[in-house]
């Protein structure tokens, strides 16, 4: 089995009492092969970050199974899970929040080396400097506090820390969101290069589908805690079959005014007639309040993931119609969306 990560029917629920119980992740399954990147996209509140935290053992799933490198993930309560640290690591969004502001970058980098390689002080310093070199951080830079480094440098240090125990999987939770475009390109290139060198697999979580498309081999689109579309990165991005994926792709503005003028009308049509940030519906299809294709079936039956192509699954009753409309640049019919509103 070469799957580095297997997630089966993962459900995560926040809040214990009945009141305020939120199902953050709902029966989600995915797999990541060695040396590949799985991109997880979705809007804020879609549950994508929770998936990453569950994979790392930072939240306890309500049900389901998570295997990292063949072994079940242990919830990181108070006991340290050293073996797990060798398998899965993490890079977070906030470049300053990912490093302890009260410790030197070097000390943060030495930590995994001390734990996993059992290196003594001098040896771990040398190893940490070698790691720094891998992410283009000079030894002088490592002897600073995080606030003395730029966002990109902090993020590179965070990547170095994650790679220190030579993990099989790194969960990258919005690793470039807080960075400027030029710095973002540096960090993305670094992640891609390191993957080629070490065959590490990434679970790449982002709200920015253009970044996800660039780095991923496979893409999963989350809405309301569910995977609504998943498959090969190029087929998901070139022939998106879920109306939500289509809306996401259409909404990404492209740096080309002429093309963007065309895309604007498509964006308008696909974003749906309904309220912009309508809450996901309960019962039936969660996307039906925002979907231009909604009909009576969507209200009754919750769509399940079904194949629409090779390595391409979608959870939509009307995927075929949506795809057709997507191909003929003509947007979805107006007016249909409004019937199921409110």
């Amino acid at each position: 089995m070469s799957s580095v990560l297997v997630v089966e029917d993962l459900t995560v629920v926040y809040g214990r009492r009945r009141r305020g119980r939120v199902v953050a992740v709902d029966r989600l399954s995915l797999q990541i092969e060695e040396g590949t990147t799985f991109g997880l996209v979705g809007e804020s509140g879609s549950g994508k970050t929770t998936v990453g935290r569950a994979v790392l053992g930072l939240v306890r799933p309500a049900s389901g199974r998570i295997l990292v490198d063949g072994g079940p993930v242990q919830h990181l309560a108070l006991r340290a899970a050293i073996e797990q640290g060798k398998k899965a690591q993490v890079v977070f969004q906030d470049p300053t929040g990912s490093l302890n502001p009260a410790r030197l970058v070097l000390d943060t980098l030495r930590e995994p080396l001390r734990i996993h390689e059992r290196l003594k002080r001098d040896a771990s310093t040398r190893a940490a400097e070698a790691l720094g070199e891998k992410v283009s951080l000079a030894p002088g830079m490592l002897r600073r506090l995080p606030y003395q480094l730029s966002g990109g440098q902090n993020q590179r240090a965070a990547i170095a820390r994650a790679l220190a125990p030579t993990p099989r999987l790194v969960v990258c939770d919005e690793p470039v969101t807080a960075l400027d475009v030029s710095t973002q390109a540096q960090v993305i290139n670094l992640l891609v290069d390191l993957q080629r060198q070490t065959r590490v697999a990434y679970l790449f979580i982002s709200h920015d589908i253009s970044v996800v498309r660039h780095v991923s081999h496979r893409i999963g689109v989350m809405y309301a805690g569910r995977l609504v579309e998943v498959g090969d990165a190029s087929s998901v991005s070139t022939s998106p079959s879920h109306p939500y994926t289509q809306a996401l792709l259409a909404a990404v503005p492209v740096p080309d005014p002429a093309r963007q003028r065309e895309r604007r009308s498509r964006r308008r049509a696909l974003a749906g007639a309904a309220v912009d940030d309508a809450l996901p519906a309960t019962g039936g299809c969660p996307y039906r309040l925002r979907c231009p294709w909604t009909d009576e079936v969507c209200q009754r039956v919750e769509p399940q993931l079904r194949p629409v192509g090779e390595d391409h699954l979608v959870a939509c009753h009307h995927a075929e119609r949506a795809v057709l409309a997507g191909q003929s640049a003509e947007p979805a019919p107006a007016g249909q969306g409004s019937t199921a509103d409110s």
Partner: protein
Amino acid sequence: MSLVPAPEVDAGSQSSIVTDHALRRVVRTFRSQPLAMAGALWMALVVVTAIFAPWVAPDDPNAQNLLHVFAGPSWHHLLGTDNLGRDTLSRLIFAGRVALPAAAIGVGVAVGIGVPVGLAVGYVGGLWDRVAMRVVDAVLALPGLVLAIAVVGALGPSLDHAMITLGFLASAGFARLTRGVVLAVREQPYIDGARVVGESTPHILFREILPNALGPIVVQATLAFAHMLLFEAALSFIGLGVQPPQASWGSMLTDARSQIGNDAFLAVPPGMAILLTVLSAQLIGDALRSALVRGRESRGRAARASRWRTRAARVAPRSLDSQPRPDRVLVVEGLRVSVGTDPGVTVVDDVTFELGRGETIGVVGESGCGKSMTALGIIRLLPTGARIASGQVILNGRDLLALTDRQMDSVRGKEVGMIFQDPKGSLDPAFSIGNQVSEPLRLHLGLSRREAWSRAVELLDQVKLPRASERAHDYPHQLSGGQLQRVMIAAALACSPDLLIADEPTTALDVTVQGKILDLLAELRSELGMAMIFVSHDLGVVADICDKVLVMYAGQVVESAAVDELFSTPRHPYTQRLLETLPGSVMPGASLARIPGQVPPAESWPKDRCRFADRCEHAGPICVGEMPSLRPVEGSLTRCIRAEEFRTVEAVR
């Protein structure tokens, strides 16, 4: 980056750097605060004389000399003698050997119990935390001195017992303080990172979390030390501390009180000793607080401000486009913004553009290039420390920079509307959204409360907030980010301004919501005919909504062009590079173009050569010879001296 020179340190002594930083801040604070310095010196004097008491004290503190009772201060006895003829100064010095260790025991017990308990319950949380905090509340409610007296009563007079009891009680405060820091730090990504790496819980508590709490703990310990000194004096005063003939400041006061009729001066030396020492501890604590605790929060800001503390470049403003247009709403001419004391550092350098009715100009560039400073300068809302050094901002024929602050208040919100990145932070959580949208209407247009409210509902409806009349009663926390941004737009448009300044208005929103907000802005713009300044780092968004674009680098406009022109034929290498770094510009997985290095801090922006040259692959000797001017090249303006050459190079590729 150049803020602090890279410390050259051998392996093995790095951890001292962290404390070095703190130490430097502490030294700086004490130097700048004479009172705190005086306190520190007095405390040092007390400590040193107490340690070396047998050598520095002029006399044996218990040596009686009944021939010399109640002697006033003299050359022989600097502070006189008491009723038994003992030298007061010597007793005072030796008393320090009682007071300081007693206070240290108290503080030691308090820190030793309180900090680990606070760390543990804060980190574990849940039931443990709730129970522990109730216990802390109960302990804090106990009257310390009374309990200490009870303990001494039960175990016999012993200062140590009393101080341990008091330390135990004070530990509750330390537990609460430490727990507070833990709660703030616990949710930080780096703690999750440490757990994922496999660090053990004690290691996380003491190596990752505790260093963040050290500042507040040190401050609290110093203040607790002052309290403990007072407690010791009080206990000894009522005879429950040290026993005669041993000297203590408190027991000396007791003696003085009984002899008050014979010699009133006896009370002065111990009283002053207590007063000055306690006061010193408090002053030291306050100074440490401003160095370690407040300094922590403002450190980033201070660091950024200090980057700006060099001389500014002086470039004469010049007019660029002399063709006046009749429909122009805004003309910005040679705008220059400086930060820091005069002359300060120029962070916006000679920005010139104009804007017609219904026209939108995008301002793009990396962070730290002066985009927001330009926008804020135009409406004179610069942060403290920044000011407009020169230039003109002419809105509808009136120079905004010549207006008084009061006149400016009536321009903002009426003639110029503003929306910002973070709608949540820009709206007041205590007022309903209808209230906040109607405020500018009442303020600027003089509408009555009722008129303003119904107009506000209309506006909320116009920005497509669903069920506007009901939702006007909602408070900001009840709305989503996209809806809040709609409310912000409604408030900004309330008085139908001629100009809308939007600073990254869609950056914090989901991409589908961003699309809707962009559509809304475009629609309102054509309806109301207002001009718009749109600051954004997202070139796609700029392509979507703008008619023309200013590209800023290091405080300067490096390219200015119509939107189609800019994206199809960028004339400045920086613009071109920005476009190439976008993930959509190459095949997935292929290496993205990158701009080497980063925007240098404003203090090191050169004034006699191209500022982008260091990061530019096309740079040659000519680029570092002089500062290139913003010059027209085929309908665009560019600040690249080799614009034509580099276009050819690109074409050949």
